[in-house]
């Protein structure tokens, strides 16, 4: 499998990658900055995500919202921030490509003169409301934050949430964020994909025309964090406005594209993907202990996390649920999975690669894929090798990865209804959340 592309690097260091697809008269513009919350430090969290917001508020030569001219031109657009990267994308009618490039390049090259205290204060309020909506006011919404606090050392960059802590956001000053912008938001730390109804030569000429005169920025040193480990099992509880207790189990696991990453991805599917998965059959169908269960290998640039989440049926204790999950995990540690289980997961993996190729833009379309591969492996054409990793997996490699990852100490977090700490795991202590 491959996504055809051509890549060139501008003199200022900006990678430009072009993929032609002339099915519809639209072009995807996709820009990745290799900066996320892992580039922050404790006490100063939430900047990368706050920046994603601020970059939609206007730049020196277009000091108004970014959405108005693009939506009017028929574009769809958005951005997102993770611990590892920030992406911005527009899907525009082919005739509006210049407009999108003009605006993207203006905010890369000329954002700060337009960044006022008033815009800053407004977007900080919006982000605080985003946090209330998506974390604080959502059932189980704070569990991920509690889990990361427990799994990583306090100064590990994955220990804080991308959305940041409210106190840090309130304490952030305009000077702080300007310095953050100068460090990370420049051509040498970015990668631009143009995909769709455009000729490659014209695409490169346009990229050079709009981005060529943006000044190269300082070299960004890679984030160095020691491989995290847990000295012993952690058992925690967190109260929330929920009806059913939920169990989260998390282990340290290989980083994105690391040794065992694809194996654990397949193992997560065998364990928790859909109604044939081992955990679903054991916990939901046969033993009727859980109402739902998932497993995921959450692989990130520095390190990964293997996670199992199960929601208890009424009157089922978290300890019993925990033991039932562990029994399934013991099975995969001790004996290889069946060949037919693996094959199904491999076909599913292949199918999901193909289904993602249906769109040129947006989150996880072809342009986003090319940029992910360019940013994380320096090779936009990595899709073939990425898929091949899944093809090479065997029951033995899954078992080896499971034995390595799942025999380490782990975090067990139980979320219980407010006021019902008695429902928590035995001997659990209160989780830290801010």
């Amino acid at each position, binding site marked *: 499998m491959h996504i055809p592309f051509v890549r060139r690097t501008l003199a200022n260091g900006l990678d430009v990658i072009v993929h032609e697809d002339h*099915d*519809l*008269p*639209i072009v995807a513009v996709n820009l990745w900055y290799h900066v996320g919350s892992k580039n922050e430090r404790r006490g100063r969290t939430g900047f990368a995500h706050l920046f994603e917001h601020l970059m939609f508020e206007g730049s*020196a*030569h277009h000091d108004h*919202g970014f*959405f*108005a001219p693009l*939506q*009017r*031109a*028929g*574009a769809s657009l958005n951005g997102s921030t993770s611990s590892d990267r920030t992406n911005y994308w527009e899907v*525009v*009618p082919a*005739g*509006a490509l*210049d*407009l999108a490039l*003009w*605006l993207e*390049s203006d905010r890369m090259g000329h954002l700060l003169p337009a960044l006022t205290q008033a815009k800053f204060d*407004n*977007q*900080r309020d*919006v982000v605080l*409301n985003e946090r*209330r*909506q998506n974390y604080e*006011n*959502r059932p189980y919404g704070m569990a991920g934050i509690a889990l990361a606090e427990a799994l990583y050392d306090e100064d590990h960059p994955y220990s804080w949430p991308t959305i940041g802590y409210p106190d840090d956001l309130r304490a952030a000053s305009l000077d702080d964020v300007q310095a953050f912008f100068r460090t990370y938001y420049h051509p040498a730390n970015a990668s631009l994909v143009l995909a769709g109804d455009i000729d490659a030569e014209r695409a490169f000429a346009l990229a050079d*025309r709009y981005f*060529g*005169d943006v000044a190269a920025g300082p070299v960004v040193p890679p984030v160095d964090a020691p491989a995290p480990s847990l000295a012993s099992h952690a058992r925690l509880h967190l109260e929330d*406005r929920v*009806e*059913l207790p939920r169990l989260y189990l998390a282990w340290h696991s290989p980083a994105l594209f690391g040794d065992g990453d694809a194996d654990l991805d397949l193992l997560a599917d065998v364990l928790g*993907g*859909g*109604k*044939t998965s081992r955990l679903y*059959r054991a916990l939901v169908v046969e033993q009727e202990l859980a*109402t739902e269960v998932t497993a995921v290998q959450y692989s990130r640039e520095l390190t990964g996390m293997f996670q199992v989440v199960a*929601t208890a*049926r*009424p009157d089922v204790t978290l300890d019993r649920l925990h033991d039932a999950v562990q029994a399934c995990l013991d099975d995969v540690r001790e004996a290889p999975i069946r060949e*037919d289980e693996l*094959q*199904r*997961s491999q*076909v*599913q993996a*292949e*199918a*999901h690669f*193909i*289904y993602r190729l*249906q*769109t040129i833009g947006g989150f996880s379309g072809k342009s986003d894929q090319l940029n992910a591969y360019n940013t994380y492996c320096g090779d936009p054409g990595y899709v073939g090798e990425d898929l091949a990793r899944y093809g090479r997996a065997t029951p033995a490699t899954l078992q080896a990865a499971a034995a390595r990852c799942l025999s380490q100490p782990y975090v067990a977090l139980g979320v219980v209804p407010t006021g019902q700490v008695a429902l928590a795991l035995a001997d659990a202590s209160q989780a830290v959340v801010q």
Partner: protein
Amino acid sequence: MSVDRRTLPVPEPPPGIRFPHLTRSELAPGLRLLTVERRDLPLVCLLWLWHAGTSADLDEAPGLAALTADLLDEGTSALSMAQLHEALAGIGGQLDTDIGHDATVLTLLALSRHRERAVELFVDMAERPRLDATDMARVRGLRLNRLRQLRHSASALADLLFMRRLYGPHPYGRPGIGTESSLQQFTVEDVRSFHARLASTPATLIVVGDISHDEAMRLVGRHVSATPRVGHADPPVASSTDGHRLLFVPREGAAQSELRIGRVAMPRKSDDYHAAVVTNMLLGGAFVSRINMKLREEKGVTYGARSSFQFLRQAGPFSVQASIQSEATAESVHDVLVELDALGTSRPVTPEELESARDALTRGYARGFETAEQVARAAAQLALYELPEDTFDRFSERVAAVTVEDVTGVARRWLRADDMQAVVVGEPATSLVGLGAVGLGAPEHRLADDVLAHR
């Protein structure tokens, strides 16, 4: 070569876009097949549309349509649940079940090298689901637990109560997911008889992707039943209910208020359709629309606010939806009501706003038909609402013809503040302050349990 940064580049108007050609056949009386052949990727998308959804539930027992839909993938007459899902995983199957007010939709995405098997499994799920008593008891238990969890989801409570307030006893006002008492009473016989009703309801099968019409006909024809499917009764015409205009559900300690403001508006086949789509775009249908700019970009009291007309076979709701910082609840309800009123009175749409909204809809239209599933779902809209074949091809010219007067007319007919009803789910101490003075009367209190436990 540097660029002139004094003015923004002016986009060229995009070329017109034609909806992909649909090929039609009648498989059996009341069962139609629509196909779109696309060879760009090795996949097929199958979509089964029954022209019956939660409106077909019985009044006194909501949730049967949804429970039946839940059971479609719990095994077929030939395969147990586990065997079915093993088979689906083996063909790269991605399955989705949607239950709406007017329709039940099953979709399957599969690798086209397995299309023969995909069609067989898909038609079996639709026509011959296993509907076993043990599976039914387990699935019902899961659904009851999901319902109990909803009690703690402010947005789900707001949605349910809002529809009930707007529609009262009309089928669109029912909780389609069921209630604790209704779900308890269903037996597997109820589910089987509901499926039998579905099986006699007109249906449309849509196939998009790496397959020809003839091959789809042949593969589907091997498995579908030839029993005639006859028309079913539409829900009655809907209109807004009288009564309290402001309902409040207390949620102690909540970090935000969930807000819904709206009314019963128009059906999909309304003559106002295109004008309403344009009106919504500038009012709350996009990031730059009036309501979001006011509440998010000017005041910073929300992560986002939006509005929508939901178009159904009968009159669907118009609604404004937002999660609001608790202390700003009353002020935000007031702001929304002011924006709604202003469009028909003091601040009519400006020519620039109108052009901008029309352009956003027409110039971006091509994006809507990129994936096989998007094309299949668009074809399903044509079938469900009995729209002319050229609906999508003519969308842009119809939107382009919408005038300032059309928008003002829609605003005056459908968006007057004195016709609005509201639901707020929030922290009582902070969000109730001033709420009685926004013009919707005194807030009437409801408890979360009342919303979910029983109708």
